[in-house]
């Protein structure tokens, strides 16, 4: 057990709470102190209501004193990406458009967290409307990578990754549409998981791309991620895309013994463009599985290079429609200089949206427009089916796939800002899973020579989170990369 409270995992804290060696108030006080000490350098939090956090902690301690425990995570804190609705809290989505918007309702995952006694520990920074891979597209502030302050934490869930990575909170929720949980998890050296599409409710998740978005857990251990997933997973009648499926006991699944799994390695993910250091670390991870009795199976996913263009057609198309509601009429930013109704739309949206959001709305509008719909959108959906089928075919032979999460470690902030295309292409390893609806988890597997984290990705079968977590846990049990916290000097 590490000496600092803020560096303990949720599982460790849970243990102490249970034994009476710890109180929730003590936990959150330690974390609030950590936030005070380091967030000035990181810039992860958008809102953190100290009093509200302490109030929830006191309530949790009172419950525990009465012998009531609402869940395994009762009394433990989770930070939320500011794209998840919390009643009476600002829901900015990192955008000027919603700068002053307060949600009048709870997302389903928020309700589940509350019912589980989890402490809602503030809202964290993100790329505007979840569009981006560096959190540089936030309208409010930049977030730094705790392991390399001049580097990006990844995106769009950069804030969610940074808070966990820096030890400000042991658990957070992010959202993943093209890799937005897994890529920042890899960049920041933590565990990040995107569930199967339909496992976690999207009601109250501000929509970016409806057929791709999923909320998922971010933590410093597989066990913690599993515990958080347990609370948020499950069918929701308020989300028509939510799957009616039994949610297994993920913690129970983790206790199972490792099996001689068949691990597929798709060759297309190890082609050129992959940073040498990343390649080396990921190959070490592969070697670990092989040497522990797993069969490493070479597979091919030929449509991999089509994934990025297909994604940027489908996601932007859906986004262009999902973001149409932001017009200043009912809520959100309303321009003060408009002449008439149409002008109000133009000006409010022009002032409220950032460049990347505008870029994607225009692209999405284009691919849906008359004369182009068949050539772009319909064709992209057809290729999407091919991509999914290739995965499912591979899963006839293997139990999971292992790939790098990103082609490089975290890039320097500002480096890709003027080159959106290069930013898009870096999503190559994460994006296919969103298109195929499959679950994926990123685990840290080492560092680059200059101390930037490197992650590898495990891809599982549809609704196969239990097995996926077990395979992930197997790696983690022999490595300690995840629960490392960077040295951050106190102050400012």
């Amino acid at each position, binding site marked *: 057990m590490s000496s600092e409270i803020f560096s303990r995992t949720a599982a460790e804290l849970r243990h102490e709470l249970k034994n009476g060696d710890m109180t929730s108030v003590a936990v959150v006080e330690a974390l609030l102190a950590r936030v005070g000490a380091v967030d000035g350098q990181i810039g992860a939090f958008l809102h953190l209501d100290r009093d509200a956090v302490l109030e929830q902690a006191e309530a949790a301690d009172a419950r525990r004193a009465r012998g009531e425990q609402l869940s395994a995570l009762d009394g433990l804190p989770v930070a939320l990406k500011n794209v998840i609705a919390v009643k009476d809290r600002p829901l900015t989505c990192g955008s000027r458009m919603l700068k002053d918007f307060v949600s009048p*309702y709870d997302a389903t995952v928020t309700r589940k967290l509350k019912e589980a006694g989890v402490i809602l520990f503030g809202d964290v920074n993100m790329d505007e409307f979840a569009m981006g891979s560096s959190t540089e597209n936030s309208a409010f502030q930049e977030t730094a990578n705790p392991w390399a302050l001049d580097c990006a934490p990844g995106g769009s869930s950069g804030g969610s990754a940074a808070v966990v990575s820096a030890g400000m909170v042991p658990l957070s929720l992010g959202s993943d549409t093209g890799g937005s949980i897994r890529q920042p998890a890899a960049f920041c050296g933590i565990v990040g998981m995107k569930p199967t599409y339909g496992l976690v409710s999207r*009601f109250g998740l*501000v929509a970016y*791309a409806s057929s791709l978005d999923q909320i998922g857990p971010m933590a410093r251990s597989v066990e913690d991620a599993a515990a958080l997933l347990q609370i948020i997973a499950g069918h929701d009648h308020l989300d*028509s895309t939510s799957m009616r499926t039994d949610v297994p006991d993920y913690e129970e699944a983790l206790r199972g013994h490792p099996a001689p799994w068949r691990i597929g390695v798709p060759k297309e993910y190890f082609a050129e463009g992959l940073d040498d250091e990343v390649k080396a670390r990921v190959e070490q991870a592969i070697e670990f599985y092989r040497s522990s009795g797993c069969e490493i199976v070479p597979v091919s996913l030929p449509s991999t290079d089509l994934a990025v263009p297909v994604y940027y057609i489908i996601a932007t198309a859906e986004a262009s429609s999902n973001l*149409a509601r932001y017009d200043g009429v009912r809520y959100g930013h309303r321009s003060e200089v408009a002449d008439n109704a149409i002008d109000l739309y133009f000006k409010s949206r022009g002032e409220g949206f950032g460049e990347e959001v505008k870029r994607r709305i225009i692209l999405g509008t284009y691919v849906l*427009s008359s004369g182009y719909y068949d050539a772009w959108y319909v064709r992209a959906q057809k290729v999407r089916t091919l991509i999914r089928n290739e995965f499912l075919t591979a899963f006839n032979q293997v139990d999971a796939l292992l790939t790098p999460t990103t082609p490089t470690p975290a890039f320097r902030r500002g480096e890709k800002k003027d080159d959106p295309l290069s930013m898009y292409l870096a999503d190559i390893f994460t994006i296919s899973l969103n298109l195929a609806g499959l679950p994926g988890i990123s685990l840290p597997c080492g560092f680059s020579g200059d101390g930037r984290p490197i992650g590898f990705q495990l891809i599982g079968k549809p609704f196969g989170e239990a097995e996926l977590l077990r395979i992930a846990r197997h790696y983690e049990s022999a490595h300690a990369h995840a629960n490392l916290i960077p040295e951050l000097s106190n102050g400012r």
Partner: protein
Amino acid sequence: MSAGNEKYEAVIGLEVHVQLKTRAKMFTRVPQGFGADPNALTDPVVLGLPGALPVLNKHAIEQSVKVGLIFGSAIPEVCKWDRKNYFYPDSPKNYQISQFDQPICVGGEVEIELPGESRNVMGEHKHIKLTRAHLEEDVGKLTHFDQDSLVDYNRAGTPLLEIVTEPDLHSADEAVALLQSLRMHLTAADISDCDMEKGQMRCDANVSVRLRGTDVLNKRTEMKNLNSITGVKNAISYEIRRQIKVVEAGGAVVQETRRWDADAGVTTSMRGKEEAHDYRYFPDPDLMPVKLGKETLKRLEGTLPEPVFVKQRRYIEEYDLPYTTTSVLAFDWELADFFESALREFGDAPKTVANYVVNELQRERSAADGDGLMPIESLRIAPAHIAELARLVEDATISKQTAKEVFVDMFSSGKMPAAIVKEKGLEDKTDTSEIEAICQQAIEGNPVAAQQVRDGNDKAINSFIGPVMKATGGRANPKVVRDTLAKLLKG
């Protein structure tokens, strides 16, 4: 000139939006309704708040399927949802969830009746083909003021069924008949109240003209949101005349949207105010396609009422009811129900029963209400009352004249007619000995007429009817009186 002229024929297609009767809105559980405080019937889904998602209202699906079944449409096994993208303040998400290429109903036809030569002659019947019917969500309501506009989202999200006809109509009268037929059938099946004043039924009309005898489809104009029957009739009539004038003068009809100005009685061009819309339809990724099984269709089929004109024809054939009676009965499902319930109690005299429903009942309902009809639910009488009254007349307990008095009494008191008759001693005298005695007296009182009858002048019997009826206080059964007189006079 609501139907073109000798040279030109009008070609009309209608898009009728019908608000479905469901408790809740199309994609969320907020109730739908008319007249609530502005923006009271809203929730995050209705308002399109960040993070809100739609959930299908199954009742709306069932109501729509029923419409298709009533009009013989095909109900495809699978239908799906598409987003119709356009920006407007009455549309909370700036897209409308609708159905583009896989609607819930395909094809079908609506029987309509045109006005006859006179009121009591059945008009021509036609079958108007439907292209399709699809489900969508309604939008909110904008009200414009000098400085600004206000929007009320109470109506937003209400389930709307858009019924599209083929360009099968050729006159304003036919268009009106189509709307009336829709209303009759949909109210009878409890699918919609189709009250145009409350916006429950709205109509867009596409109008063009062509030379008679040709079957080309020329450029058409579209008139949107005609919201009353007279509006539909007048707008279409005007537009037909206007287009013929344009063509006769050598001009060409411009394909455009036109606005009906009821006050001025003209349509005006909206060109320039509306740009061509590219709605960028694509399948809504928040909703699953809908699969309709055979069992569901069968079950819904079983809930359908008899189609209106089928009922009317049955009333004519089975009960030999006159046309005017059937058009009152068959076109008003509540009256038809009342009538048929009464027949179940006493089925021997459908004409009498029909008569009481169509005349007596309606008259009393009208008298009882200020400016309409007393609602059926508020009546003190039930079908059983009318059934019993008819029975009393048929078995000669009371005369038709007496029955009229009894009706008024029973309508206001709710008492059964037999009880009223007994109470007031209104039975017809059918005691033959008593009648014989009175007839005998009458005969003796008028020997001249008596002789005339004996000599073969049957008409002379009428002279005795008056005195006999007077002597019996109007209570003698006329048939019995006549027979008795005849027997006494001729032996």
